[in-house]
């Protein structure tokens, strides 16, 4: 265990934890647009930067991204200095130049008193803030279907060759975790469309409702010991089945009166 001071208050953390996790645990409100607990921290948005120092630094300070900084004993942290607020304002101002019409960005920027960008907005803006969460989550899921393409200001998230991505299984992890709802998909009947690819959805045997895509179901059963036909049932149907089975066992054990 290590002990640190955060905004003047003592806090404890486990060795190897990143600062951001501790700050969140201490209920300190720090924005972190490119962060997700399920994937490795990225350090791209820079909003989670905090000021750190140590007694032995004799007044020397450092600004670090808390998502990537491992805790240390004796660390003294400030999260809302004027410099840090100014930095976050500038970052959000710059975000607004790229995504002037994106509600998630507008809301966060408004919290820091920035209502419109003071820089030159891009022509033809979209909602992508290039946080990279979609690509990192897709990698984590095991598919790696999309990636960051080009570099610098021309960077964009796209499938290979900007065509329908062959490795995509339509699991929707990217779309569901996108902070700005930039990734669009459509579910119509038993067809799903995302990234320019069409998928067939598995039909729930009991309710006749669509569940997940056939490709995703194939993948899941291939990489685990779940039988393929498990996916012929939607979650709700499974839960009902499970509840009924448990109920039968409880009755058999005389736990619940018949």
């Amino acid at each position, binding site marked *: 265990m290590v002990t640190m001071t955060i905004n003047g208050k003592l806090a404890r953390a486990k060795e190897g934890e990143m600062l951001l996790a501790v700050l969140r645990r201490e209920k300190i409100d720090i924005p972190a647009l490119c962060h997700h607990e399920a994937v490795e921290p*990225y*350090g*791209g*948005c*820079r909003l989670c*930067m905090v000021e750190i120092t140590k007694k032995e630094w004799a007044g020397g300070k450092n*600004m*670090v*991204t808390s998502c*990537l*900084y*491992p805790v240390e004993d004796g660390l003294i942290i400030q999260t809302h200095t004027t*410099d840090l607020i*100014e*930095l976050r304002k*500038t*970052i959000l101002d*710059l*975000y607004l*130049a*790229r995504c002037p019409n994106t509600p998630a960005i507008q809301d966060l920027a408004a919290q820091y008193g920035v209502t419109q960008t*003071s*820089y*030159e907005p891009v022509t033809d803006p979209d909602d992508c803030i*290039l946080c*990279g969460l979609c690509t990192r989550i897709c990698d984590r899921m095991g598919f790696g279907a999309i990636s*960051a393409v*080009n*570099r*610098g*200001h*021309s*960077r964009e998230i796209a499938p290979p060759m900007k065509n329908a991505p062959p490795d995509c299984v339509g699991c929707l992890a990217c779309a569901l975790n996108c902070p700005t709802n930039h990734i669009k998909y459509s579910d119509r009947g038993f067809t799903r469309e995302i990234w320019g690819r069409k998928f067939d959805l598995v039909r729930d045997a009991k309710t006749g409702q669509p569940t997940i895509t056939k490709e995703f179901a194939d993948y899941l059963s291939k990489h685990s010991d779940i039988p393929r036909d498990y996916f012929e049932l939607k979650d709700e149907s499974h839960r009902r089945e499970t509840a009924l089975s448990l109920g039968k066992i409880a009755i058999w054990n005389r736990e619940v009166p018949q």
Partner: protein
Amino acid sequence: MRIVKPKQLEQLAAGYRKTAGKHKKTVTVCCGTGCLAKGAQKIVDAFEECLNRRKVKDFDVEAVKKTGCHGFCEQGPLVVIEPQGIFYTKVKPKDIESIIEKSIENDEVIEKLLYTNPQDGRKIEKYSDIPFYSHQRRIALRNVGKIVPSDIREYIAVDGYKALAKVLTTMTPDQVIDEITKSELRGRGGGGFSAGKKWRTCRNVAADVRYVICNGDEGDPGAFMDCSIMEGDPHSVLEGMIICAFAVGAKQGYIYVRDEYPLAGIRLQKAIAASEEYGLLGDKILGTDFSFSIRLSRGAGAFVCGESSALMRSVAGEVGEPRAKYIHSVVKGLYDLPTVLNNVETFVNVPVIINSGADWFKKIGVAKNSGTKAFSLVGKVRNTGLIEVAMGTTMREIIYDIGGGIIDGRTFKGVQTGGPSGGCLPETQLDLPVDFDSLTKAGSMMGSGGMIIMDDKTCMVDVARYFLNFLVSESCGKCVPCREGLYQLHKLTEKICEGNGTEEDIEKMEKLSQQIVVGSLCGLGKSGPKPLLSTIKYYRDEYLAHIRDKKCPAGVCKNLIAYRVIPETCTGCMACVNACVYQAITGRKKEPQVINPDICQKCGACAAVCKYNAIEVS
């Protein structure tokens, strides 16, 4: 032929020196990239052709040595007669016959090929007497321009691999690190970090596998020192790396060579093969238990890959995205293993320090900045070329004594060091000693060694815009302050260059720059605003002229200048009409021509070809 004992190496060295001595005279033909572009290959061919025709006593094609960059690029193609050191400049293939006749067969000197000192108009015979050379101290460049790079025998003959033998047979790894630390050798790639400290930290990390990487990316436009060393003295790079690997305990090394330097890659590959054959690299080096291999890794055109963590990702076959350095790459680098990354120039200083001692090295230079630094002196200076001076030499001495001052009699305006991560320094800073700390304090930085001289016809606002444009196209795009911030800074400088800027824009740029410096993930972003900030600091008047007066004093910014034919002076020869790519000039023969300002792109082609000075820029 494998060398398994230092004694063997000594004997070989003596033997090679004797063989080289069989030629009473040798001829060095500079084949650095600059001279090659000026036709050095034709000079070599002319020698071969001539020597095929006539027999010369004690001289044959073997005595004609194709070396790396000799340094004085402006005077190339260069031919040097050794051992006298007779220096022939701007040599043409038709001069070879008489060089052989007069200077090889006899001891005459060809006056018209000698360098003329512009100070007094006198001819100078030996290059060591030329101010360009006499003010230099060549340690990292000691062999460049002197030996044939692809021949290991030439390297061994000049005490090559002697330091390696000394290290492997008489020193422990800790002793090596002590010596390098004592020498106070600082990273020559621009960071200026203590090499000894870096090696020590890497060695102290508990690990089974470690790596040594040589950074040959040299992405700063205008810098070609590392290029010349890799092309002209590849073995010294290898020797430095092997000594480092022994000191830190690494078995595998990589040399990351920029994609734009194909010749450097070829020379290094040849050197690796030759040293492996001699048992100086690979398994059981020099008959000891120490094994170390080196592989080449090619860059693919990305300035950001000069940054250490991005470089390591590139070596691993990934995109060159840097990562936060809260955990240093000496602890977790390539493939998350402890890695020492040093610049080419840093490594080539290592054998010298081992051979001559840390104390000797520390005597050169100034306090806390020991040794020398290689620079590429380019731009509007008279003597462009590759130089090396002791740390602490003043800017004035470099630009005027070595560089010969500004070309075309124009006025000095600024010197840019550190590439896109550095800054511009004006006349008032000319007496600044050139060392890591002084340059950083003045708002610039040492960088890898590119030194670009600017005159009064260089627009400093345009220079800031140029660097920002470069950085925007080279940014990896991962973090917001760099990707979005530098883009917006660039747009603002463009606005000013076009004549649409306001004074508030300057303040806006200064504030945004501060945030980019604080918030960026890596050095590219953190140092990115430096050229802009240093030009605002030292050349604020020029920014204000663009804003308030809508004028570009240097006559560069297209929207703010106009080209005009002076009708009284124009002879109507129409040379300008032929030269104009945009067909903006019209007129009849023998009558004054007229430039159409709506079509004119202000390229200056007309002024360049006009023999009568009939074109003016306002």
